[in-house]
């Protein structure tokens, strides 16, 4: 299998597991998790320096999911990487589960920062990128932010400060899925021109299709060549990508699947009839 097909397959498996996890939990942020599956697949299986057997090794690249509610996809990727066993995914949102509805540092291997209150992850990433330089380490820091999250003032405080510190070891990826919780971002709070805003703040800006593995790979390659300033990759995505009942709708933000939607989605994502039947049985037993 080519590298691109492998990364596609990983993203698809993560998306399938996101649907299963949320179905078992009863509710979850399906839309903002499914929109970032390819980004995470490329980061964890192509771009970042990580060690599946040692999630905390000092030289590792850091990843912060600033839009913390997208974490079902991150947890699914952690299971693919081997940071956590796949069975742990089925405990999503349980009271004693390491997989809380928003990521918490210290609960689950791989989580680099507690997030969930929007707008905060980029600042922490800046702290890590400054820290890398002070420690004379050449690891890189990746922060995934949301488009709706970019309504928060702190994002722009952070956007102003990273170029001041010339953080070329910092890459932001914006999951530009065009929706907030309640409506289209354009309706809730217009963000455009995003390219111009980030460029004016002193960032190197790249725009890609956030579901295109090859475009993402090239964007990260380009970011590595940029010196003296941070890079943002504006990744155009579709909220609820691959989930027919909610795709490209605000309703995808937090979803309580009914059984028919689950089987429909799993089939649409390429699961076999056997796998779907097996999962529907598991779901029935849990409820």
């Amino acid at each position: 299998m080519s590298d691109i097909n492998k990364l596609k397959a990983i993203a698809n498996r993560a998306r399938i597991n996101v649907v299963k996890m949320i179905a078992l939990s009863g509710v979850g942020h399906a839309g903002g998790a499914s929109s970032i599956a390819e980004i995470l697949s490329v980061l964890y299986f192509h771009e970042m320096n990580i060690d599946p057997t040692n999630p905390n090794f000092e030289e590792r690249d850091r990843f912060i999911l600033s839009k913390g509610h997208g974490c079902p996809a991150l947890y699914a990727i952690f299971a693919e990487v081997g940071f956590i066993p796949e069975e742990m995914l089925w405990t999503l949102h349980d009271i004693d589960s390491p997989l809380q509805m928003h990521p918490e540092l210290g609960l689950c291997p791989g989580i680099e920062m507690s997030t969930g209150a929007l707008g905060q992850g980029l600042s922490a990433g800046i702290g890590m990128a400054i820290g890398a330089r002070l420690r004379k380490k050449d690891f890189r820091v990746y922060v995934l932010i949301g488009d709706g999250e970019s309504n928060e003032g702190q994002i722009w405080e952070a956007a102003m400060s990273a170029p001041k510190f010339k953080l070329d070891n910092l890459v932001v990826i914006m999951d530009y899925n065009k929706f907030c919780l309640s409506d289209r971002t354009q309706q809730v709070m217009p963000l455009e021109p995003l390219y111009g805003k980030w460029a004016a703040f002193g960032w190197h800006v790249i725009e890609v299709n956030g579901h295109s593995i090859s475009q993402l790979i090239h964007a990260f390659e380009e970011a590595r060549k940029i010196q003296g300033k941070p890079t943002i990759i504006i990744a155009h995505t579709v909220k609820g990508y691959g989930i027919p009942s909610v795709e490209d709708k605000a309703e995808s933000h937090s979803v309580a699947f009914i059984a028919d939607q689950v089987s429909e989605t799993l089939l649409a994502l390429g699961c076999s009839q056997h796998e779907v039947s097996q999962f529907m049985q598991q779901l029935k037993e849990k409820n």
Partner: protein
Amino acid sequence: MSERKAPRDHIGAILLKLAENNPDIILLDADFKPASKITAFQNHFPERFIQVGIAEQNMMGIAAGLSTLGFIPVVSTIATFISRRACDQVTTSIALPELNVKLLGLYGGLFVGKNGASHQSLEDLAIMRAIAGMVVLQPADVVETRNMLEFATQYHGPVYIRIGRDPVPQFVPDDYQFQLGKSLTLRDGNDVTLLSYGDLMEDTMLAADYLAKKGVQARVINMSSIKPIDEEAIVKAAGETGGIVTVDNHNIYGGLGSAVCEVVAEKMPVRVKRIGVKDVFGKSGTNEQMKEKFGLRALDIEMDVLEFLGQDGRESQKSKSK
């Protein structure tokens, strides 16, 4: 009386000395360095001084990120901007992940050099006390400030230290060692107990002098560890003196008075009088004007204590003003 010194005038030099022995200490500033007197640190350790501009929320996140690499970030700005403006960042980015960040809240309370209500933190103790796992301290003088900063850089976890702006006498002994959750009795007495911290320690001690002249022997305790609080000393004082008066440079809701009430209500119910700012915002003015307006002068404290004890506080005030 000892020489009067302002805690905030000394934090820069104290931090510089600590940083010389600990390469992990990093200082973050949000454009407040001339007032917090930390410019010398920047000059000495330019690479370990991070100027984030007037952006306290971002500053908290940067501190959080640095701490994940084993640094000990010390964040220094006005108390209100830590507790009010950046409350969510302190909570979610620092306290929730239990990160090793030290928060220096300058200008805690009413005394902010005529800056007025927007700059007065009368809520910070309530806010910071309510954040899970947050340690909340205020030193009474410069010796205790040095002790506390030393403690904070050795302790692992988030610590909020409220730093007074103006000169105060020395209250703790030269060989004092700050201990988390421990108080220091500054004056013995068994008729009533006065508890305070920080800038108002002086007026509280003076009130105890006035009370002694009326035959009331007040125990005075410096409760510099506001959270965790010295429950043992409070229970002992409640048992031995029968009543407690707290003196807060803070709204009476949520400050030391509330913390003390929580302890005595559960462990040794006695009457408690909470002196402090009575649920109003502050004003521009001198410290003396502020103390008078909000009833925090030594003679106000004395009168409140006498009233609390069932003696005639009003007569006492009249005789003093003669």
